[in-house]
């Protein structure tokens, strides 16, 4: 057990525990706050993977924007927040069964696949992942088209969200 593995196990365990709280808590505000904890855990996993930029973007975009949006949505639909009825529908066991089967199938697939225990190569010294990422996102020979399509998608989503949620009265 290297320290790296111990840190990964702690982070992964905390992330999965808070993920379970997200799907089981009754109070939706608490579920949204547990989602913040889960997102921080995933950002820590990105940091362990040497993807610092992705980890920062995860915190800025997910924790800073999406989780806050969830909390606003829960507060705007407050009447159902402490709904006295059950929080899970009557077919929740089928959902649980399907989730367990999905997990089992994925674990089976990953285990039957050899060459997964190999260690990652060291990052070459002087390699700057962020500048490489920026170059590839704006280079016509690489990913400039998906990048532009993503920006058009964000614009369309913004216009659509304003249109759908606009109060005409």
């Amino acid at each position, binding site marked *: 057990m290297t320290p*790296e*593995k111990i840190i*990964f196990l702690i982070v*992964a365990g905390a*992330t*999965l525990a808070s*993920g379970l709280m*997200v*799907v089981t808590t009754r109070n*939706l505000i608490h*579920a*949204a706050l547990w989602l913040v904890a889960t997102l921080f855990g*995933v950002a820590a*996993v990105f940091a*362990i*993977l040497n*993807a610092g930029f*992705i980890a920062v973007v*995860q915190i800025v975009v*997910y924790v800073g924007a*999406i989780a806050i*949006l*969830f909390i606003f*949505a829960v507060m*705007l*639909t407050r*009447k*159902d927040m402490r*709904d006295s009825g059950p929080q*899970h*529908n009557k*077919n929740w066991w*089928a*959902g649980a069964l399907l*989730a367990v089967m*999905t*997990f089992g199938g*994925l*674990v089976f697939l*990953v285990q039957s696949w050899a060459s*997964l225990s*190999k*260690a*990652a190569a060291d*990052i*070459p010294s002087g390699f700057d*992942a962020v500048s490489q*990422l920026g170059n590839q*996102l704006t280079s016509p020979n690489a*990913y400039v088209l998906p*990048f532009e399509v*993503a920006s058009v*998608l964000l614009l369309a*989503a*913004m216009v*659509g*969200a*304003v249109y759908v*949620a606009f*109060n005409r009265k």
Partner: protein
Amino acid sequence: MIPLSWYLFFSAALFSIGLFGALSRRNAVAILLGIELMLNSVNVNLVAFWRYGDVSMMAGQVFAIIVFAVAAAEVSVGLALVISVYRRRNTVIAEDLDMLKW
């Protein structure tokens, strides 16, 4: 060094938790919370494969960035729909929204 399969097991577990949340919750906002968990687990896979492959090929990180953008778009439109439905029908329970069922 952590083996790649640990990341894959972690993301499979997170995906299954999100799938359970999306399938079993009654509140529409909680269903969107489950979908966010699933999108996050996909990102873990993408970045892990970038790290364990050729690090000079940035495709994994580029895809992760695009998944961020898609998740932001999805959640903004989804929550706008939830708020609009709440304003008209006064409920966000997914089972009560059966206008299209006959």
